[in-house]
């Protein structure tokens, strides 16, 4: 058989009509498939999208032992990484852990699934103010609290006769020139500067933002680095003596190095809350609710809190923790300073654009 005969033989076998029939059959099968998949029971799998080192050491294993559901964990480093990944559609995550100021944005963009509180009976263990006082998620429709904390000042005790409890040392003074590190995350970098100037941490006012920008640019020669969430490493290695950092990061460091201290500034720090939420299109919503319920089981919560050293919103768990934890001023700051601190919120797309441009100018100056 010579070559041209073989090829034309192939061509006649695959006639146009046959091809269209085959393609239509395939198309119908593909459209029918999801319906069949949904009819079956949820498979014993959970896809968890979380921050690094932000879960107890045995929590996931314990959940699998208790329910038989296997947990696959994926990590992210910033809230905007989470947002960028979920923007164009949920790649298959069941439970995510966004910070509270992202909940209104995610909800408005239609990216969250409402929570069914009847599937989460352990809500009764959560401190009441988290369920009632949340302006970013009224009635906790889309999220439940996971851990909360503050942003304040971490410092090396031996270098300071008394705690540097003011934002002035970070933003407006050359006393510790070259030994200061600020956060590179724009919301908090500008937010704390605004707080120092006496404005709201969530200000959307262009003039106030410009004022904060000018302040930081003036302070730049004294700042060693804008740390990308590794300020505690700089403090630990002795690169800097004064950092603006998350309370839990410094608390974890304090457990290893007694020379490290944490203090909320006199002007007030920033209050934040990490939340548990279910993204829209989650493949295993039942498992997701079960997991969230499991996290708020008091004993499980104690295990998580012992590892991550952040403040837990679960009052039953907090009651079971030891004194070293409940009296740790880095984790539970004094009431007087907490009142002066402000919760970070979502300030709308326009304000975000304004602040981001200010940060680009700060980093370029």
């Amino acid at each position, binding site marked *: 058989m010579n070559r041209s005969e073989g090829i034309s033989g192939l061509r006649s076998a695959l006639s146009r009509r046959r091809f269209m029939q085959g393609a239509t059959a395939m198309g119908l099968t593909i459209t029918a498939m999801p319906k069949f998949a949904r009819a079956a029971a949820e498979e014993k799998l959970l896809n968890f999208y979380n921050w690094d080192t932000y879960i107890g050491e045995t929590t996931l294993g314990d959940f699998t032992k208790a329910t038989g559901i296997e947990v696959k964990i994926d990590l992210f480093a*910033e809230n905007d990484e989470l947002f960028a990944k979920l923007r164009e559609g949920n790649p298959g995550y069941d439970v995510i852990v966004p910070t509270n100021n992202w909940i209104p944005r995610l909800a408005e963009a239609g*990216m969250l699934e409402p929570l069914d509180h009847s599937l989460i009976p352990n809500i009764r263990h959560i401190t009441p103010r988290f369920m009632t006082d949340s302006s970013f998620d009224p009635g906790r429709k889309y999220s439940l609290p996971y851990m909360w904390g503050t942003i304040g000042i971490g410092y090396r005790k031996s270098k300071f006769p008394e705690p540097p409890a003011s934002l002035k040392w970070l933003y407006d003074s050359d006393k510790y020139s*070259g030994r200061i590190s600020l956060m590179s995350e724009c919301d908090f970098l500008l937010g704390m500067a605004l707080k120092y100037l006496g404005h709201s941490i969530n200000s959307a006012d262009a003039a106030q933002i410009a004022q904060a920008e000018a302040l930081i640019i003036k302070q730049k020669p004294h700042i060693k680095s804008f740390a990308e969430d590794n300020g505690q490493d700089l403090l630990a*290695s002795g*690169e800097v003596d004064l950092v603006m950092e998350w309370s839990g990061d410094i608390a974890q460091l304090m457990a290893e190095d007694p020379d490290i201290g944490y203090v909320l500034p006199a002007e007030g720090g920033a209050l934040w809350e990490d939340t548990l939420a279910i993204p829209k299109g989650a493949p295993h919503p039942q498992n997701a609710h079960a997991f969230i319920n499991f996290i708020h089981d008091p004993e499980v919560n104690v295990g998580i809190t012992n590892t991550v050293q952040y403040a837990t919103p679960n009052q039953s768990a907090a009651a079971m923790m030891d004194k070293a934890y409940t009296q740790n001023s880095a984790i539970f700051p004094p009431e007087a300073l907490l009142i002066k601190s402000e919760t970070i919120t979502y300030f709308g797309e326009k304000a975000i*654009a304004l602040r*981001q441009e200010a940060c*680009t100018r700060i*980093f*370029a100056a």
Partner: protein
Amino acid sequence: MENWRKSPIVFMFTLLPPALWLTAFFVLPLSLLWLFSFGEKSGITGIDITWTLANYARALEPLYLGIFLKSLWIAGATALICLIIGLPVALAISFASTRTRPWLLLLIILPFWTNLLIRTYALIATLRGNGHVNSVLGWLWKIFGAQFTPLEILYTDGAVVTGLVYVHLPFMVLPVYAALDRIDRSLIEASLDLGAGHVRTFFTIIAPLAMPGIVSGVIITFIPAFGAYLTPDLLGGPDSQMIANVIDRQFKAANDWPFGAALSFILLYAAFFGLAMRGLIGRRAVMGRAP
């Protein structure tokens, strides 16, 4: 298999997989991004393609032009230092004995086997206040009984250039070595026999013949350094922001994909322009040399 006209079907078969791959994973995503650069944000996640030039206009504002220029400067410094260090290294390797040559090449390529992130962290451990450089210097100072304050090397533009040179040096050495390897040794012998010194031989004979390799090396070092993101992020100081860091923020924190796309494409246009210039100059050189 010699001519695509003679066996078109074989040509199609071998071309199809890479063509499909290129289309699906390169042309299509970039085209989408190109469309975004002419778009506007609508709501939180939507983008309207309104064919507006506002994003490009904004990208050419003094603030962003300044950042482009700074990235150009850092990348240029990186390419220059790589050339100054890499050229002698490539010369040494090409004139080494045939037995030692593979080992020397291996030494150059070995860092490639380590992840970029790990290499950058190693540099942090070396350059920081308590790092290896400062420890050695402190020890030396102590021997001479002098007071030593640690050098502030890390978190500066210098640290960024050091990191970029460290990472891109093999990209300079290998093309230059390949070009040097192709030079006919008898030309060098003839030049030395006729009385030219080593330096004159180098500049008159070796460098012009190795020029294509040198230009390739400079381009392969400059373009990635221009778009560097990780190194300025980890090693840089408060003002070491490069254009790739700004683009990253547009796609993440600022949630402004159209603007990020416009910035990215300006980088792409600049790279294409550079390559086109190199092609033109190359062609003119070849035509000039033809008898």
